[in-house]
C-alpha cells in the first residue's frame, strides 16, 4: 500500500516538476501550507474569537480579524517570496565514495527580493540563502555518496517560512545532471603483479621520446650531458633527465594486476594507486589500463580526474547504480 502510494507520488511529482537543471518556481510547482506554529496560531485566533463573542468585546473581535487578515497577507507574502526564483545547477560535483559530493546551485531572483530561503538536499543539512532583487547566490549542497558511480543530487527541497514562520511555501528543485563518485581508495595489501604484455607496450612508449622520462634531482656521479641546462638557466635547479633507468618506464596501473580481488575492490586499489601517484612531487607519469579502455600515461590534475572518472564510471551507463 505504502509502496504504491509512494510510486504514485513520484510519478505525480515527475509530471508536475520534471527533472531539469534549471527550474523556475511559479504557482504551478509551489506548495504552501501552515507550519505547526501556523496551526497553533489558527487555534489561537479561534480562541480569541470565542473570547470576543463571549465577553461581547468588540475590540477583541477587531484584534482577531486583524490577526486573521495578517495571516492571509502572510500567505501571499510567503508564496511570492519563493515564486519567480530560478534555480540552476551550476556544477555537479565529483568526489570519493564515502565523502560528501558538492553540487553548486545558483539561485537567481530576477524581480524581487527573496528572503530566508532554505535549501535541503535529500540527506544533507539545510543551507539558507537570501537574494536581492536581480541578483544571484551560489549555494553548495552536499550529497553523501557511499558507492562509486553516478550520483544524482536528488530532490532538493526549497523552502521559505518568511515572514512570520506561520506558513511554509516549498517546492522541489530536481536537477538532472549527475555527479561522479570515485571508488573509495583502498591501499592493496600486496604489491601489484607484474604483467608480461604490459611491459612490451610500455617499452615501446618509452622509446617514442623523452616525454615520459623521469626527472630527478642531480646527484654526485651524474654525467653533465644529462643535466637539463635549459631548465637550470630558467630555475637554477640541476635536474637530470633519467630515461634509461627503471623509473623511466611509465608505470601502468592495471586492472588485471590484482588477481583474486573482485571488481569493486580492484577499482578501489587502482584509485588508491592513482591518488598516491598523483600526489608525488616531482610528478611521475602514469597510465591506466582497464578492460576495454587504456589511458595513456600522463600526469597532472586533469589526467588524475580523467583516470578517476574512468574508474568511477567503469562498467556503468549514466544513471545506472553499481
Amino acid at each position, binding site marked *: 500500500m505504502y509502496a504504491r502510494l509512494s510510486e504514485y507520488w513520484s510519478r505525480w511529482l515527475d509530471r508536475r516538476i520534471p527533472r531539469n537543471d534549471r527550474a523556475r518556481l511559479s504557482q504551478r510547482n509551489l506548495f504552501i501550507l501552515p507550519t505547526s506554529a501556523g496551526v497553533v496560531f489558527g487555534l489561537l485566533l479561534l480562541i480569541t474569537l470565542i473570547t470576543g463573542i463571549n465577553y461581547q468585546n468588540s*475590540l477583541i473581535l477587531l484584534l482577531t480579524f486583524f490577526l486573521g487578515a495578517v495571516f*492571509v497577507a502572510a500567505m501571499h507574502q510567503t508564496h511570492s517570496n519563493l515564486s519567480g526564483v530560478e534555480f540552476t545547477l551550476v556544477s555537479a560535483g565529483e568526489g570519493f565514495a564515502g565523502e560528501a559530493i558538492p553540487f553548486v546551485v*545558483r539561485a537567481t531572483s530576477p524581480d524581487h527580493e527573496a528572503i530566508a530561503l532554505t535549501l535541503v538536499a535529500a540527506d544533507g543539512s539545510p543551507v539558507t540563502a537570501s537574494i536581492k532583487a536581480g541578483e544571484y547566490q551560489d549555494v553548495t549542497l552536499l550529497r553523501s555518496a557511499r558507492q562509486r558511480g553516478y550520483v544524482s543530487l536528488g530532490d532538493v527541497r526549497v523552502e521559505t517560512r518568511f515572514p512570520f514562520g506561520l506558513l511554509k511555501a516549498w517546492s522541489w528543485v530536481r536537477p538532472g545532471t549527475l555527479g561522479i563518485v570515485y571508488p573509495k581508495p583502498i591501499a592493496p595489501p600486496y604489491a601489484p603483479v607484474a604483467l608480461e604484455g604490459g611491459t612490451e607496450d610500455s617499452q615501446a612508449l618509452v622509446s617514442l621520446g623523452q616525454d615520459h622520462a623521469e626527472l630527478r634531482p642531480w646527484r654526485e656521479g651524474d654525467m653533465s650531458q644529462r643535466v637539463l641546462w635549459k631548465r637550470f638557466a630558467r630555475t637554477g635547479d640541476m635536474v637530470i633527465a633519467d630515461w634509461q633507468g627503471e623509473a623511466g618506464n611509465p608505470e601502468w596501473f592495471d586492472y588485471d594486476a590484482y588477481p583474486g580481488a573482485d571488481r569493486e575492490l580492484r577499482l578501489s586499489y587502482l584509485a588508491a594507486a592513482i591518488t598516491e601517484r598523483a600526489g608525488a612531487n616531482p610528478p611521475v607519469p602514469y597510465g591506466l589500463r582497464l578492460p576495454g579502455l587504456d589511458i595513456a600515461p600522463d600526469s597532472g590534475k586533469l589526467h588524475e580526474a580523467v583516470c578517476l572518472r574512468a574508474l568511477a564510471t567503469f562498467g556503468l551507463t549514466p544513471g545506472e547504480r553499481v
Partner: protein
Amino acid sequence: MSTRAGDRPTGIPGKALIWLMAGFALLLIPQWDRLPPWLLGACVVLASWRWVVQQGYMRMPSRWLRYALMFGLLGFYVATVQGRFTVDTAASFFVLALGLKWMETRTARDFYVLFFILIYLSAVNFLFVTSLAWTVLNLAGVLILLVSLQVLNAPDQPAPVRQGARRLGWMMLKTLPVVILLFVFFPRMAPLWSVPMVSGQATTGITDSMEPGSISDLAQSSARAFRVTFGGDIPPYPERYWRGLILDRFDGRRWTQSEAPPSGRAAPVAIDGGVGVLEAGQYDVLQEPTFQRWAFALADSMPVSDNIVETPDNLFRFRRPADSSVRYRLALSSTPGDWLTELSADDRRRYLQLPVEGNPRARELAAELRGRYESPRGVVDSLMRRFREQPYFYTLRPPAMTDNHVDRLLFDDRRGFCAHYASATAFVLRAAGIPARVVAGYHGGSAGANNAYLIIRQYDAHAWVEVWLDGRWHRIDPTGQIAPERIESGLRDAMAAEGSFLANAWASPERYQNIPMVRWVSLQVDRLNYNWQRWVVGYQGQSQLDLMSRLGNRMSLAQLGYLTAGVVGGALLIAGLVSLSAQYRRRHRDPVMVQLQRWQRLLAKAGLPVIAGETPAATAARAADCWPECASDLEAFARLVNRHYYQSANKQDLLTLSALNKRIKTQMKAATRNRGARIGETMT
C-alpha cells in the same frame, strides 16, 4: 538529527528577543494596576535575567533552579488568589506563566510559545481597558510582536526591524478594508457562557453606603462617571439631578440601603444600549464601569433600552454589575410623579426609621418645628430657611465629626459637605415624623466638545433628600440653600473661595480648565474617546442590527453570518486575482527581455539551445558558426541587448530588436531551405 528545515535547533537572535521583550513590556502596562506588585517584579527580573543570558554574562538557570522558581512563584500565586476564579485571577496566572517562560526560552519553538501567550495577553487586556489610548498601546504591542517574529525568521537581513515594520505596514494597509468589513458584518452573537470578570474591584464612585466624608473624598477625583447625550435640549444645570440609589436606613453614623440588593451573578453586563435616532425627550447614558448594578438617571425617567429595569422607587438597575462601560437609554416621562399616591405602613416605617438614641439636640429641634407648624411642608420650609439664613458653610474640608454628628453640624461646627447636610436634613425630618430618604447620585455635569453631550465626573457626586409630601416624593437640597453656586454652576465655583477644588489632583487636566488650550485639548480627547466607546467598543447586538437595517433590509444573525463568509471569500478571491495578475505582469514587464527570450527560443528551435549562464554575445558567436548567413544580425542583436542593459537604454532599442528578430528568422528559414537544396543537389 532530523534534516527537515524547521526542526533544527536554532538559537534566538538577540534582536528578535529584545523586541519580543519590548512587546511584553508594552502589553503589561494595561495590567499594571491590577497585578500584584510581586508578580510585576518577578516578570521584570525574569525577563532581564533572560536578556543577561543572551548577552553571555550568565547561564540559563539549571533545571532545579527553574523548578524552584516555578513552584515558589506558583505557591505565592495560589496564596494570593485564595481559590477565587475570575477573569482577573486568570489574567494574572497568564502573566505568571509568561514570566516563567522567559527562563525556558532557548529555541525558536519557545519563542513561538511566548509569542502566542503574548498575543492572547493583548486580547485579555481588552477585557479590562477599552479606551482609544489603551487600544492604540495594545495594538502597538501586537505590532511589535509581529515585527519580532520577522526578525526571528530573517535575522541576517540588514535593518530587519525597519524592513519588518514597513512590510507589516503594507500588509495592514492592504487588509484594512477587509478588517473593517468583517468588523461591521461579523454577527454579534449572544455569549456562550459567562465567567465573572473580576473579584472585588476597588473603583472610585458612589458606594452603597454613605458616611460623613464619603462624598467629599469623591470630590477630589476628576475621573469620568458617565456621559450623556440628549435627544432634545440639555436640561438647565440646576435640574440635573442624576439619581443613583436611595439610602433609607440610618444607624447613627451611616446611611445604607435597607433592602439587600438582589445578588445577580457577576457576568458581563449587556452593553447594548438601544438603537435608532435619539428622539426628543430621550437620552443616552454611557456609564464607566462601576462594578455595581445601579444606573444613574434623571427623576421621572422611563427605560427605553432593555438592559436596564426600573425599580418601584423610579431607580434603574442593570441585570448584572457593570464591569465594562455600558450604554443605556432612557426617556423623560411627560406626566411626572404619579407612580405612588399612598405610602404603605411598611414603607412609612421604613422612611421614618431612626436609631433609638443619639443627636438629642436635633431631635429637640424636630419636636419644636413639629409643634410650631401644622403641615409637614411648613417644617420642611422652615428647615430650609434655617440653612439659608443662619451661618452654615459648604466646605470640602469639614472638621472631623465622630459621635452625634448631626448635632455637631447643626449647632456647633456648621461646616460640612453635601453628605453632611443631606444626612442632617433627613434626620431632622424623620425625627419630626415626616418620611424622608437620602438620595445619592450626581448633580450637574459639564458640556463636552461642541456642547454635544454632558460629561459627569466623580467630583459631581452629590447627596440630597427626598421627602414625602402630599402623596408624592419631593426633592429638597439643603446644599442649594447654603451654597447656591454648587447647584447653579457646580463645585468648581462653589469652592472658588476656599481653593480646595481638586486640590490634591494636581495632574488632572480638569484642574486647569481656565487655560483655554488645556480645556480645548481635553474636550477634543474626550469627544474622540466618547465616539470610540459609542461606535466601536459599543458596536454590539442591537447597534449592529440597527446599522444593517439602515443600510438595507433587516437582517438576521444567520444572514449576517453568510455575509461575513461572503466578505472573507470575496477578499480571498480578490487577493488571489491580484497576486496572479501581479505575477503575469512581472513576467511580461520587460519588453526587451521578452525579445531576448524570443530570440533564444528561435535559436533553440533551430537546434541551438542556450546554455545556462551564457551571455547573449557567446550565444551569438556559437550561432554564427552554424549560420554564417546571419552572423552580423545575430551579433548586432547581442550587442544591442548588452548596450541596453549595461550602458544606455534607448527607446528605439525595442523596435530594432524586434526587427532584427524578424530578419534573423527569415534568414534562418532561407538558409535551412538552401542547405536542404544543396544536400539534395549532392544526393543527385
